[in-house]
C-alpha cells in the first residue's frame, strides 16, 4: 500500500494565503492532499487537516499577525513535515494569551492542545523580526525509527 510513497517523495508544497478565516479551508485542503499522497490513513489525514487549521486559526486570532500565512508541507519518506509561518510580530506562543479574555484563551489553549495531541512533533521558532514558525511532523505509522 505504501509502495507509491517512494515515487512521490521528497516533495514540497508551498501555499501563501491571506491571514483571514475564509482562506483556512484552502490550507486544510492543501495539507490533506499532501497527506493523501503519502498514503496516510483517513484518520491521519484528518489529524493533519485539523492541526494545520488550528495553527492557521491561532495566527488569525492573535493581534499583530501578518498579512499572510505561509504554509509549507513537505512529503518525506517516513513523515510529513509542516511549517506554518506568520510574518507578524506576534505569533502562536503562550505569552500572547495574556492579551485575550478568558474564553478566548481557553479556546486557543484547546487548539494548541489538539495540535500537540494529533501531531508527533510540534515546536515553535520565534523570530522577533521575521515572525513565528510553527513546525509539526506527522510520521507514517510503521515507518518511523
Amino acid at each position, binding site marked *: 500500500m505504501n509502495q507509491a510513497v517512494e515515487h512521490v517523495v521528497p516533495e514540497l508544497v508551498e501555499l501563501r494565503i491571506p491571514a483571514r478565516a475564509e482562506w483556512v*479551508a484552502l490550507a486544510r485542503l492543501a495539507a490533506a492532499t499532501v497527506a493523501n499522497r503519502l498514503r496516510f490513513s483517513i*484518520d491521519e489525514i*484528518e489529524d493533519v487537516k485539523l492541526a494545520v*487549521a488550528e495553527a492557521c*486559526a491561532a495566527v488569525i486570532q492573535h493581534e499583530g499577525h501578518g498579512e499572510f500565512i505561509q504554509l509549507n508541507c513537505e512529503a518525506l519518506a517516513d513523515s510529513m513535515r509542516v511549517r506554518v509561518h506568520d510574518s507578524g510580530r506576534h505569533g502562536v506562543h503562550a505569552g500572547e494569551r495574556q492579551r485575550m479574555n478568558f474564553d478566548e484563551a481557553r*479556546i486557543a489553549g484547546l*487548539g494548541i492542545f*489538539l495540535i500537540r495531541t494529533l501531531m508527533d512533533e510540534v515546536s515553535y521558532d520565534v523570530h522577533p523580526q521575521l515572525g513565528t514558525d510553527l513546525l509539526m511532523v506527522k510520521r507514517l505509522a510503521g515507518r518511523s525509527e
Partner: protein
Amino acid sequence: MNVREAPGECYVVDLSGEIDVYTSPKVKDAIGSLIDRGVYHLVINLEKVRYIDSTGLGVLIGGLKRVREHGGSVNLVCTNPQIKKIFDITGLVKIFGIFESEDAAMKALV
C-alpha cells in the same frame, strides 16, 4: 444550518458541513439568539458535520455555559467517528451529552 422547534420547549439546531474559524461565528450567533429568546434546552445535531475545529467546539462550550446558567442543557447528536474522536481527545465527552440519534438526545434533555 437549520433551527427547528421540538416538543417540550426544546429546539434542535441542525449543523452541516464545516464548523471552523470562518463559519463558527454564524453558528455562535444562531445559538446565541435562541438563548437570548429564552430557549435553554437545545439539541445540536452534528450528523451532517464533516469537520469541526476548536473554534466550533468553543461555540458549543459557550452555548452550554450560557444555558446552564439558566438550568438548561445542550445535548449533541454525533455519529461521525472523526468528529467523535475530537470530543474524546479534548475530554468534551464528559461535559456534553453525546447521542447516536436525535430521539435519544431529546429524551435525555434535563
